[in-house]
């Protein structure tokens, strides 16, 4: 197991190196100058050039990239040229917001998907099954920003159960502020999760060991949960991992709708301001999270299915 993890981590280093190179190259290939953005339209070319020199942006690109890598190796993510504060401070503040939003979303997604998939699988081919199978079509047809606004209009403006965006200042307010964004995340993940989990359950519930367990007189719920669900969860975990990685990118939209100060919002303003260090660092963190989520999914397979032995 530890050899497997070490091997995967070594692969990750290569992946992350590729991500840094691609992000750096793309950012510098796209026209746009942060000094010009900061100084505004009245600044002269000489003033822009002066700031470029001060920030080291007039140096050759390979030298700038090498500097960036050396800084990264020292754990230094750089300084935001727009806000003039360390990028690590900005990310340190924003990342917990995004992770908390995804965690709440994943919780809601799993909490909704498991009973729905069980219901559909148990009542295969009947009305309940059809209803649950239509759900993905409806869910996938709704863009997250639209779902977000509908939730805000219903639960914040009409029923007034939750705040209309923002993040609050206390832990209780933070949690309250994450409910609707979490539901929006769940609206995106649940349909796919339900569909894959239902398929896996239908497959598992028809297998010999489930029939054998039922024949041995085990309680229905025990057969469903201990034997059926546990086996069906393996492919579902994979789907959830892929979706969470996808949603990390989608957090830009959801955070914008709810006015959440997460890394998505940070990335967006970073792109607009050509704030190189912010964009590079957030992209790197996203890449790191995606590979870690996938590693987590692999480890979860092993935990859920004893037949899976990692590293062979």
């Amino acid at each position, binding site marked *: 197991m530890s050899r497997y993890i070490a091997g995967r981590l070594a692969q990750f280093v290569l992946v992350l190196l590729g991500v840094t190179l691609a992000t750096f190259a793309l950012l510098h290939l*796209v*026209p*746009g*100058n*942060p000094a*010009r*953005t*900061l*100084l*505004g*339209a*009245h*600044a*002269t*070319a000489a*003033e*822009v050039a*002066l700031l470029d020199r001060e920030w080291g942006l007039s140096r050759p690109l390979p030298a700038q990239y090498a500097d960036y890598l050396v800084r990264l190796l020292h754990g230094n993510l750089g300084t*935001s040229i*727009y*806000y*003039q*504060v360390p990028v690590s401070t*900005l990310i340190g*503040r924003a990342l917990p917001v995004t992770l908390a939003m995804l965690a709440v979303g994943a919780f809601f997604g799993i909490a909704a998907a498991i009973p729905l998939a069980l219901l559909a699988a148990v009542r295969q081919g009947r009305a309940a099954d059809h209803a649950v199978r239509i759900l993905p079509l409806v869910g996938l047809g709704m863009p997250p920003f639209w779902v977000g*606004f509908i939730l*805000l*209009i219903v639960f*914040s*403006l009409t029923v*007034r159960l939750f*705040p*209309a*965006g*923002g993040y609050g200042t206390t832990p209780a307010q933070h949690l309250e502020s994450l409910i609707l964004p979490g539901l929006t995340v769940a609206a995106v993940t649940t349909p796919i999760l339900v569909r894959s989990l239902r398929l896996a359950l239908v497959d598992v519930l028809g297998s010999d060991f489930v029939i054998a367990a039922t024949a041995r007189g085990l309680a229905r719920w025990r057969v469903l949960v201990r034997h059926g669900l546990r086996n069906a969860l393996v492919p579902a975990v994979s789907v959830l991992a892929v979706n969470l990685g996808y949603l990390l990118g989608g957090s830009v939209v959801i955070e*914008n*709708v*709810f*006015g959440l*100060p997460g890394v998505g*919002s*940070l990335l*967006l*303003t970073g792109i607009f301001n*050509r704030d190189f260090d912010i964009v590079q660092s957030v992209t790197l963190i996203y890449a790191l999270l995606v590979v870690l989520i996938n590693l987590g999914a692999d480890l979860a397979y092993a935990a859920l299915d004893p037949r899976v032995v990692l590293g062979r």
Partner: protein
Amino acid sequence: MRIRTAVPAALAVLLLAAGCSGGVSAAGSADSPASGKPVHGGNLVIDIETPQQDFDVNTTSDNESIWTYDQVAQTLYLNGPDGRSLVPGLATSYSLSASKLQWTFRLRHGVRFSTGAPMTSKDVVFSIEQALNPKSTWNFIDAPIKSVTAAGPYTVVITTKTPWAPLLADLALFANAIVPDDFGGQTRAAFFTHPVGTGPFKIKSWVKGESLKLVRNPYYWQPGKPYLNSVTYNAVSDASTRVVQLKGNQAQIIEAAPFAQLSALKAAGYRLGLFPSTRIDYVTMNELFKPFKDPRVRLAVSDALNTRAIMQAVFFGHGQAADSPLMPDVSYYSPVGLHVGNLAAARKELASSSYPHGGFSIDFIAGAGDPVQTAVAQIVQAELKPLNIAVKIRELDPSEVTAQEQSFHFGMRETYWTMDIIDPDEYVSFVLDGQAGSFANFTHFNDPVIDSLTSQAEVTFNSSTRQALYTRIQRLAAADAPIVWLGYSPYDYVSSPAVHGFYVYPEGNAHLENVWLSG
């Protein structure tokens, strides 16, 4: 609500002669000044479009930072609510020497910084001197100042290199706000992280990129003000989210509400604040592009564009077509009339030009994703087609648009201007003066008569004479058409009915010390 303090005689003469009515256009008022007895207390939340970036007055250029800084630090004279007048701020009066070179300012007594320290001439001298930094983005405004000296604890003398009529307006620029001598012993960088001034509020906390909280300055010099305990600015980039937050009472004032939603918000009981602004949108024509060197081609292009329709379309019925190169809420504006929206005249003008049949292609640069720039580019493209002039739109990163403009790699572009000071000198020097560093807003337009009139206006103190000079400048610019002036649009705010006394001045700043919350 407005600051109403005694205007010294000399200033009053200046204002009266400037044609200042002292009134405010009622159309833009979100709230009448007399909407009840102000109540103390309450915490106001304002949703702004982009976060404050930097308060260092030598480098900052974003409006959010400037307008927030106005709540914290104040200038010797302050812009008046009508966009044309000045009212005493930290100075109570001034006198001008016979040579018109020395301005002696008498400072207000009893003014304290938010630290409790009294403000004296030492602080004023330091503040203006630090603004004179040649590296400052705003140095061009203070460039005529030769020296600043203290002539007693409450007297300051400013000497200019030449007689300089716009000085009082220049001193009202945020970059000339008064801060403690030597930044109160802090480094420049540390000071501007949490700047200290004599304004109605002081900075309590600032989470860069997210929110900024101001709390009342207990030492503020206007008795009984400010009314609010705190003002929190939240950066909410999505316009629809700002509207939702207003409706959910997460915010009581929102900036830049979508124009398309204004009617619905008004019907729902919210207060619309369409405040007269100094914004003017215009399309520049690069005269290094050969066809635009011919004034008849420029006039033909101007004639062909229906600015009324453009302003209506782009600002959802809230824009107004320009009738002068100057804005109505700026001193010395004169509605001289412009060549616009007449295709027959455009054809006739083009026929008499060096390109009688058109047949050339214009490179129109526009900021990618900028709704105004891209919409205007498309309309210009359609409206120049009948003249057999092709328009190729090149969408670029906003900073790249400016870079291409400043290196003259473009044919046309849409841009806009808002005034930072009340005197038109700032705008006319930048947009029309061919001898200035801006090459007449990067058009390479050069009219020696306009340049000479601009210089004369700078050294002329008599307002009638200045009015005559600026009227001539406006007429000449309209006749030469170096630029297509599209029109004027208001600042767009929406507030909850509980907000009173909120008024945005034509330069974009609001005096939040006058704002109070009811209920």
